[in-house]
């Protein structure tokens, strides 16, 4: 008889699941515009997801205080993708099933890619905020896909310009973490360095990956010390950057450390410590604290008022700008029709965001993202370094 119970149990469970799916919210009540946010609220990049959520909610508050979009209040519908491609596909399907026509999605290129395909197939306009792989826009045309962040190659190109024109470095070390983002930047950097390598102007003396998630990088630090490059470009995330830099300075490595746009965060400063970060240079789009647009000040003030700090990374600010871009496009299109909104995204000329004008190319890339090199001064505060 027990077996029967077990079978019954199985059926009850499956029925319960079916019923629980009925608990999904139905159609949007009139008077609001629902915009989805797909973010890694759990998993390895949970912190980024939380920041993105907070930033987007602040941006939505600001929009709503000014009367919303087309007179309607914005409501953010959140789906967690756990920073994993499978959950990303499910999160996307969830938002699509709820009838959303515009979403902000997501952080990490290999997580964004499957979701972007789904959004595109279902004619949902999606705007990525932390997915910089070139292939997202260049491999195939996704008519409904946009991103507010830059592209790996823009950054890599800037790096090459920076080391050859400003630093006049000859011996360069490039280190990545074998992950989507870091490796992308590193490969592109190699590509743009190639002419200089061929002409003998620079030499790449180190090109390898570290294993992310570990704590002790002294083996690779010893190697860097022995090679002693002029410039040491680390293309991946801040947790490893902080440890590497700290351990390298402790071991007496004096090479110029160049980090990318995901490195200079409060966490980075805390983990590496003042002694280590002094004099390290970071390539970045204009950072929030250096932005002088009225929109950026307004956003940062509101964020500070609520969370008593500024967003932990630039990506969450791009997420907020993704909302701003969508708001502007919906306003221009006069509604949420995806074709019209996508068209408006491509053609709008006067949308202003926290990170500057929100302009997009035909393929969905953000136009004219300027890059700057920032340096930590002796007090551990970032200063603009180049170009001034």
């Amino acid at each position, binding site marked *: 008889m027990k*077996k*029967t119970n077990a079978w019954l149990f*199985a059926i009850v469970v*499956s029925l319960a*699941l079916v019923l629980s799916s009925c608990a999904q919210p139905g159609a949007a009540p009139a008077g609001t515009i629902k915009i989805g946010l797909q973010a890694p609220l759990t998993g390895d990049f949970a912190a980024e997801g939380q920041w993105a959520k907070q930033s987007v909610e602040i941006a939505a508050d600001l929009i709503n205080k000014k009367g919303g979009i087309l007179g309607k209040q914005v409501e953010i519908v959140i789906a967690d993708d756990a920073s994993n*491609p499978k959950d990303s*596909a499910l999160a996307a399907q969830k938002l*699509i099933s*709820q009838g959303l026509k515009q979403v902000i999605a997501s952080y990490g290129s*290999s997580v964004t890619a499957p979701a972007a395909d789904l959004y595109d197939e279902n004619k949902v306009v999606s705007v990525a905020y932390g997915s910089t792989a070139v292939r997202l826009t260049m491999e195939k045309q996704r008519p409904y896909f946009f991103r507010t962040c830059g592209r790996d190659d823009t950054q890599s190109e800037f790096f090459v310009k920076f080391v050859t024109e400003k630093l006049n470095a000859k011996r360069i070390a490039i280190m990545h973490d074998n992950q989507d983002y870091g490796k992308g930047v590193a490969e592109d950097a190699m590509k743009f360095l190639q002419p200089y390598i061929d002409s003998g102007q620079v030499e790449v003396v180190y090109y390898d990956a570290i294993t992310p998630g570990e704590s002790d990088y002294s083996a690779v630090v010893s190697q860097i010390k022995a090679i002693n490059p002029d410039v040491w470009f680390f293309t991946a995330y801040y947790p490893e950057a902080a440890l590497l830099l700290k351990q390298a300075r402790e071991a007496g490595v004096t090479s110029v450390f160049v980090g990318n746009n995901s490195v200079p965060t409060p966490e980075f400063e805390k983990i590496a410590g003042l002694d280590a970060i002094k004099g390290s240079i970071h390539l970045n789009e204009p950072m929030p604290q250096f932005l002088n647009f009225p929109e950026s000040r307004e956003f940062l003030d509101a964020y500070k008022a609520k969370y008593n700090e500024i967003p932990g990374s630039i990506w969450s600010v791009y997420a907020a700008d993704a909302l701003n871009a969508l708001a502007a496009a919906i306003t221009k299109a006069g509604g949420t029709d995806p074709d019209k909104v996508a068209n408006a995204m491509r053609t709008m000329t006067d949308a202003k965001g926290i990170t500057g004008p929100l302009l997009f190319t035909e393929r969905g890339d953000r136009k004219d993202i300027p890059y700057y090199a920032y340096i930590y001064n002796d007090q551990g505060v970032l200063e603009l370094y180049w170009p001034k």
Partner: protein
Amino acid sequence: MSEITRNLTQRISKFQDGKGTPSVDKKTQLILLAILIAVMAAYPFLPFVNNYWIDVGFFVGIYVLLGLSLNIILGEVGLFNLGQAAFYAIGAYTTGILYTQLQIPIIVLLPLSALIAGGFAFLVTSPIIHLRGDYLCIVTIGIGEIVRITALNNPFGLTKGANGITGIGNPDFGIFSITTPTQFYYYVWIIIGLVIIGLINLQKSRVGRAWNYIREDEIAAEANGIDVRHYKLLAFVIGTALAGAAGNIYGSKMMIISPANFTFMESCLIFVIVLLGGLGSIPGTLLGAAIIVIFPEIFRQFANYRLLFFGAALVIMMIFRPGGILPRRRERAGFRGLGISKLPEDENTLLKEVLDSGLSTARQPEAAQEPTLKTKAHVHPPPNGLVLETQRVTVQFGGLTAVSQFDLTIRENQITSLIGPNGAGKTTLFNVITGIYRPLSGKVIFMGEEITGLKPHQITTKGIARTFQNIRLFPSLTSIENVMSGPHCHATNGTIPSIMRSPGQQKEERHILETASFRLHQVGLWEYRNELARNLPYGKQKLLEIARALASSPKLIVLDEPSSGLNDKETEELMEFLTKLIAEGLTILLIEHDMNVVMGISDRVSVMDMGSRIAEDLPQNIYNNPRVIEAYLGKEE
């Protein structure tokens, strides 16, 4: 104590009423199964089931396939494999690479991915399959990491590194291709349906039983004629091939694969699916996969706490239901659970048929009627009347000589006893004869043929069966299943006929069952046929072990202290039974401490002390041999 016995008899009496199978259960089960299938089929069209929930259903399907794939390795054979994601990855990458580079259709790649994953598993597990549980476990973790990191490092530009492979196509059947969530849902579940039918057939065949014997007791399985290495590798190959197929389906659905899909955490999830559902239980795997996928989806609102709950739930679950949610219940299924078609409804009818057909004489060489189970040993009479001979066998353990230059001769149709004080090396010699130890020097000759260095299962197949000093049954299998391991080594149908349930395979399975039924009846345990071996009292377990050995139709049966732990009456019955076996044409070698048994039934006695033979003679002469007295009682000063 009496409480336990009463309980046991009550439980057994349920199977004694002539039916043995609770047929009401079967009907309810079928109805429930039909409802389940109907719900599953209608699921995409149920109100409020949107594409999101259909996709959830699809991913449940992927994890069901993965769970089933690991269930073969972990559930059926008990091999700790925490690297199943590696084989899933191999399948997905095979699909990704061959589709994008050579444009081979996805549907062709489905079997190909399975084949390559299975082939890869064969190559990498062959050298390490003999490792003990936890060592194998870490090696599989290592394989998982090696595959993932290799994919990350983009060797030869094939795997595209961390970006992964994009642009994988959809399964295309020519007339239509599978694109929508609903189509994918049906696609994966139809494949699962086919796989489950195949797996159930396999589970209920000699292949599936061989896997279970290994899981229950590897040494006993090998000693009963199961080629342990072969069946472990087979499980790995079939299991990983299934994971490879899952990789193909996953890749064609997502159209993009990257190493992030195939982490150690993924392997752990698959592992948990199998254990949550119940080892070796197919319905359990279905439920386990559903829980693993759906639980986090439902609790996504509590993002920060859902894994906390999940962890706690796992612990609580193991405390209160350690066997999993839907464990396989063999004892309830009766003979019907053995998966042999056209068995008589009443199990006693089967026994009657067996007894009437004269199978009782089948084990005798002249009367061997069933060609499938006949052994060569029965056909050729041994030269010089010697069934077994050891010639100057020496065994050393780290410099310590356990058996020294030992000669033993066993004549046909006789009972030979090997006696000696504790630690004399008797069991060690047994282990040499049955192939568990390899002697340092010397030869073992069986029926005129040298068998030194053969593996235990090969020796069993040649016609030597054994029992163990400490009973080694297959505790969570039923008595009949225990005994069915005996005829295994003479049967020939492998994986494919078992999955197809070919007529030849069915005939052979039935014959295995008949042989086992006969032996079970012969030792007087027929009424306990559907009881789990571990629930039998000690004396009956000993008898069951003898029945199991007899079922391999041996020429020589080697019994290690059969009377230990038996009371006087049981010992008496045992002696009578052994004498009967001699009458039936068997030859017996005994290790025995009970001198009444030794002197009562032995034709010859060999005495061992400190690893050497000190006497071999007729029983009555042994009594008076001064060296024997000295060995047992110590030298008179």
